[in-house]
């Protein structure tokens, strides 16, 4: 029997990132907010971090940017981890699916809305719905192609993300 809080542990309602030893809660809840945050700056993900920081945390974060030169890189890696945490999936998969969804938004969102799935659903749930819709409408060969595309490392990112780095970030969240 599944422990009652297992899904909540891997798909939390409130996503927090750790930057310089401090935990920062993010505002994003819905699919629209997360996909919009990714789409606002797909290269550097500033729509996620610092875009989703609470206004009340802005002054402290601004202070850090004035003291350190590496904040952009820290923000980026925090955003990558946050996407993984909010989606409950590998961040590459969630990022790629979000970008694909943005590309065909009116079609995908339109079909999902007709089926009662709104973009105000939680990010992880909306991604599940979007993926299952795409998967359902594919034949066997296309399904493999879809999965392959979703697992490809995104190109043209501002900073490199190595597999070990991604593991380390997820580990840090598990510790949190």
């Amino acid at each position: 029997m599944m422990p009652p809080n297992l899904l909540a542990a891997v798909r939390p309602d409130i996503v927090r990132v750790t930057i310089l030893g401090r935990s920062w809660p993010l505002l994003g809840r819905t699919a629209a907010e997360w996909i919009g945050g990714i789409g606002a700056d797909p290269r550097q993900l500033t729509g996620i971090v610092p875009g989703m920081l609470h206004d009340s945390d802005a002054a402290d974060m601004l202070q850090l940017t004035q003291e350190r030169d590496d904040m952009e890189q820290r923000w980026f890696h925090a955003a990558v981890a946050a996407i993984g945490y909010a989606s409950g999936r590998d961040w590459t998969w969630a990022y790629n699916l979000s970008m694909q969804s943005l590309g065909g938004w009116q079609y995908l969102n339109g079909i999902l809305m007709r089926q009662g799935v709104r973009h105000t659903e939680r990010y992880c749930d909306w991604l599940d719905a979007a993926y299952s819709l795409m998967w359902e409408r594919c034949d066997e060969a296309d399904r493999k192609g879809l999965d392959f595309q979703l697992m490809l490392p995104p190109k043209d990112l501002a900073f490199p993300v190595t597999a070990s780095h991604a593991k380390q970030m997820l580990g840090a969240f598990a510790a949190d």
Partner: protein
Amino acid sequence: MTSEAETFTYDVCGRSIVCKRMKPGQYTIMLKMLNVFRMQLDAAASDEDRLKLALEMDRKTLNLVENQIQDPADAAWLEEQMLYGRVDLEDLRPIVFGGVVPEPVADDEPKKPRKAAVKKATPVKPRHAVKAAGRTK
């Protein structure tokens, strides 16, 4: 070392100051911070509280400006000019916006549309042409 695209020159009191351009993420945070101050100002119970908040906002803006000035000698010179009253924060505020002076908009007035730009961008069909297009043969 910052590249040319990351810096700009701002002229104040006859001196050209090289400033670092704010990164998009920093700009986002600055706007969030200013939003908090505005909300606190609206909710302030007394003039004294409002004054304290306004001074705090000015102090943080000044910190931002100082952080953007590339040469410490320029920062020191600017501080001296402010002490002598030759330069105030309003003269320096454009630095946080990349040297561009934002157009002032009063809170209670709607922004006037830029008619010349709208006219150029969207050529309007004469009414008789629209009516003719709607007529069926």
